[in-house]
């Protein structure tokens, strides 16, 4: 039982309506069980509630109804027994700190022993090819570089669970491919649990154990990816699965938002 990281039952999230309008119900009774060391990808149309869901899982947004257990414990009651890392959809870097200082900030906050800082930073800055930019401020870096820096920051604190909201959306294909492979390595080596939101179905097919197809505030489809690991990026099996995923996604999304007349 200790193997269950998240257990979400009937999660409902509403945002208050504007100027007395009816509230906007974004999550409509979501159920989900995430096990330790799973790699789950979430696909879904823009605005369907993916970030809202991660916000709740990360503990940032306590205003929801339904039940969430984390590591077997009620969620709302204080600190979870696991370290949850969250890579936001935007980089959210502190603009007055350099790249390296931004990472230091996170490691200090999370109380990563300072003996490990140099090693962790070296590894992840190299991974993301940001080594030469450690002393740059965020506004001196490109969009993709900021996104990679946010990834460095999230990885350096070595969370048990990693929530990632479109972490590679602004990266070129080569960089993204490399990072996907590296992320899988890290995931395998450290036994993390990862929930990964993406709009790239191939990425989802390559990375995950199962894909959750979200739409209209619910998980509409769950697609297990039964390709053996380690996987090859150009594996025809993945290619085949991706085809199915894309087709399914277009169906699901189309159903959610019928074409304008």
């Amino acid at each position: 039982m200790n193997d269950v990281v998240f257990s979400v039952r009937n999660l409902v999230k509403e945002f208050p309506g504007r100027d007395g309008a009816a509230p906007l119900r974004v999550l409509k009774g979501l159920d989900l069980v995430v096990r330790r060391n799973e790699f789950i990808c979430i696909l879904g149309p823009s605005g369907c509630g993916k970030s809202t869901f991660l916000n709740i899982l990360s503990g940032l947004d306590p205003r929801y109804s339904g039940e969430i257990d984390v590591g077997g414990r009620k969620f709302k009651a204080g600190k979870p027994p696991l370290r949850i890392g969250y890579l936001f959809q935007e980089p959210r870097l502190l603009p007055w700190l350099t790249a390296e200082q931004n990472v230091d900030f996170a490691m200090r906050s999370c109380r990563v022993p300072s003996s490990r800082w140099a090693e962790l930073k070296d590894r992840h800055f190299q991974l993301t090819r940001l080594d030469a930019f450690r002393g740059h401020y965020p506004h001196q870096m490109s969009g993709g570089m900021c996104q990679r820096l946010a990834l460095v920051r999230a990885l350096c604190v070595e969370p048990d669970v990693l929530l990632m909201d479109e972490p590679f959306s602004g990266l070129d294909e080569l960089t993204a491919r490399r990072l996907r492979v590296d992320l899988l390595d890290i995931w395998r080596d450290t036994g993390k649990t990862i929930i990964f939101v993406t709009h790239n179905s191939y990425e989802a097919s390559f990375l995950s154990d199962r894909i959750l197809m979200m739409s209209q505030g619910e998980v509409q489809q769950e697609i297990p990816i039964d390709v053996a690991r380690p996987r090859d990026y150009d594996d025809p099996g993945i290619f085949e699965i991706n085809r199915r995923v894309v087709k399914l996604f277009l169906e699901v999304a189309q159903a959610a938002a019928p074409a304008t007349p």
Partner: protein
Amino acid sequence: MMIRLVSIAAAIALWWLLSLAFTASVLPGPLLTLQTLVENIAAGNVLVHLWMTLARVTAGLALALLIGVPIGVLMGLYRQIERALDLWVMVGLTVPSLCYALVCFIWLGLNEAATIVAIGITAAPSIAINLWEGVKNIDTRLVAMARVFEADRWTVFRRVVLPQVLPYVMASVRFGLGIIWKIAVLVELIGRPNGVGFQLFYWYQLADMPQVLAWTLLFTIVMLIIELAILKPIEHRLFSWRPRVEL
């Protein structure tokens, strides 16, 4: 630097022109004022007064920041505290420095501690208001980020909230200096037997405007030194990361 020199020269020229429109008993010119100041310095009684006022201003500013910044920040962060304190701050802002000074002098005695407390309390509400507005305007997404990284409140405050309200703190220090200097003048007037403000009023009562302006000039020079030698470099260091606004 060129611009600054020209600007100072222009200020002095303006003063000189203005002074031509008045008699020296109303607005003495720069030369007469400087001469008076130099004579005062030569007479050797300037340093004590300057030192006393400077000490009061500095200590008063420190106290005002110590009271004002936390109150303002807490009011910005917590709605309960805001509701509990907003009217207090407005009241604190309205009570005349005279009342503070009187109560402090009678309670704590006519001494430096009372002076500094009176100055600090009078200036604290303005600073609190500035910080209060500042905190309400910070980027909440960065606070959320810090919370995800398990930062405790103190860390969030010190490393995420404070850097965002630093411009407000900087502004508070700057205009705080000005307010506090004005308060110090008043407080010295009613309760201290020395200081630049004391001298200022002394000569004002004697209708000796060259002396009034000489003492004003003295403190102005000190304020400019503070600005150029302390505040500007600090600001430069704190905000060097920031790209310059261009229109």
